[in-house]
């Protein structure tokens, strides 16, 4: 059964199939959380209406299927989730999916900038520090890495605000764009970029130092391997060793963690978006907790899990591209 399908496609397909049980588990998990939460949809609805009599409440329960056995409810819930129907938000008075979609762009933009910055600068600095292991340069880089790793993003955000917005007045305190600016074209891009500088820095510095430390350790480890010694015995210089022999192998564990760490990064956006009042999913998650909007919160959990799965899928493909030993078929 040799179909003329490129191996990378079958590999990708297999990866996608593997994600199915994970998604189902997450669906079940959010359902359980909803059930555990005090009050159900009808309670929220009735609260929204300002009260109702018992008979009406019972009828509403039947209408929403809440009188059905748990299994039936779970099945209906999963069927709805699969079509990205997260129910109704009683806070925003519109479907949760619409609320989420309004916020998705901001978060994705923040994620993309933070992650790419953290990753590229992190591995570059890590490789650089490893090449000069135990020198002064290495010590400075490693120490900074340790300190940034220990700094909570909210504290870093406040200190940056204090310096760049309050004292120096260079950057805006919050929001995604200047409210009364009505910029268009390039001015709009520049305006948004300026608003994103501090949130991106706050979110990426921790992960930057994380990748830095990982890359440094990984490079030091790979540099000890036999085939690097072989390349040395062939007369290769240090630069050549680094770029042709060490880097690619040293990147493999870092790429693995890139996928694993992404969900943590997404979680970190809650704090940063809240501080800088960026209208993204993270800020929405915080507001939903404060306003007890469980439908929206579960919607965020599900949507962000899907994003994480997609990113993991992409890093898997990247890994397969980097590691020639992976059998794609």
């Amino acid at each position, binding site marked *: 059964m040799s179909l003329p399908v490129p191996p990378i496609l079958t590999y990708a397909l297999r990866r996608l199939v593997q994600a199915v049980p*994970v998604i189902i588990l997450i669906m079940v998990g959010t359902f359980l*959380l909803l059930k555990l939460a005090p009050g159900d949809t009808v309670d929220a609805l009735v609260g929204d209406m300002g009260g109702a009599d018992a008979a009406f409440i019972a009828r509403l329960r039947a209408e929403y299927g809440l009188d059905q056995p748990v299994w039936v409810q779970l099945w209906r819930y999963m069927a709805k989730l699969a079509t990205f129907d997260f129910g109704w938000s009683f806070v925003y008075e519109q479907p949760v999916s619409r609320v989420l979609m309004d916020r998705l762009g901001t978060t994705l933009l923040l994620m993309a900038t933070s992650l790419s910055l953290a990753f590229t600068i992190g591995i570059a600095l890590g490789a650089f520090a490893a090449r000069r292991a135990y020198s002064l340069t290495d010590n400075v880089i490693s120490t900074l890495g340790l300190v940034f790793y220990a700094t909570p993003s909210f504290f870093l955000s*406040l200190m940056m605000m204090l310096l760049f917005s309050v004292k120096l007045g260079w950057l805006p305190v919050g929001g995604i764009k200047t409210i009364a600016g009505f910029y268009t074209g390039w001015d709009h891009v520049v305006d948004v970029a300026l608003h994103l500088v501090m949130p991106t820095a706050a979110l990426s510095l921790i992960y930057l130092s994380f990748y830095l430390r990982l890359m440094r350790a990984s490079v030091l480890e790979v540099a000890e391997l036999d085939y690097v010694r072989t390349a040395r015995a062939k007369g290769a210089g240090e630069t050549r060793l680094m770029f042709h022999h060490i880097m690619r192998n040293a990147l493999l564990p870092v790429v693995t963690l890139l996928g694993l760490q992404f969900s943590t990064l997404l979680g970190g956006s809650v704090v940063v978006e809240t501080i800088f009042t960026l209208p993204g999913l993270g800020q929405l998650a*915080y507001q939903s907790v404060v306003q007890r909007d469980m439908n929206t919160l579960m919607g965020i*959990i599900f949507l962000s899990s899907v994003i*994480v799965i997609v990113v993991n899928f992409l890093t898997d493909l990247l890994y397969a591209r980097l590691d020639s030993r992976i059998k794609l078929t």
Partner: protein
Amino acid sequence: MTLVDADLRPPEPSRPVVFWRRYRRNRAALLGLFLFAIVVFMALTAGLVDPDDPLRRAGVPLTAPFVDWATPLGTDQLGRDILSGIFYGARISLLVGVVATLISIAIGVVIGALAGYFGGWVDDVLMRITEAFQTIPNFVLLLALVAILGSKIEWITLAIGIVSWTAPARMVRAEFMSLRGREFVDAARNLGVSNTAIIFREILPNALPPIVVYASVIMALSILLESALAFLGLGDPNYASWGNMIGQGRAVLRTAWYCAAIPGVAIVLTVLSFSLLGEGLNDALNPRQKQR
């Protein structure tokens, strides 16, 4: 005509001595130990330094540090003593950190050990569950759990434990997978040792060093998670917490930045101490790694 090999080498010093010698070589780790000792000292003596409730008014609101010796590090906008808050905050941070770490390591060890030792479908099922937990952004899950369970410190600690077990589980699984193929495990099986005894008496002691090192990382992350919750105002309002102090300090950032900066520095140093401690433990427990 033969080369006799039966003579023993001179005995080696005992394990704790070797451990300390190796740990001592890493100067940064010694600094970490020192910082950690300070935090523990603050947590233990919080009641002695200021027997009063740290949430009570202690002086004129917004006194700057080093002005009034009754409140050496100044006061916040409600007149609460910042030094006292730092001491009591250390207590909460450590308590949450230690208990949450124990919870997450316990879950992680059980899941990781079962998955790694038995493999097959047990591994498949457990790893899918682990992946599901790992896929949900941990802070969002933490928010959801706190929203459901409430903001009591016990629940917060439990919730932090629940969102942080996946990484140790994966690590323990990897350790078990590599150790279960080692010959000493075969040797034990060959003697007729039961599965339970192999998992807990043969493999686990050998998997412990990396777990201990990793515990220091989880500890740091737990403290960061608790402080982030408290910063957002979702912590337990009945206890002084560094994160909460920073959150409150945000309102007076323009005029009295020290209200946020002092507890912030406390968090940075505490988390730093755990990172350094972890590196020292790693050097001391994994002697195969290169020394400087």
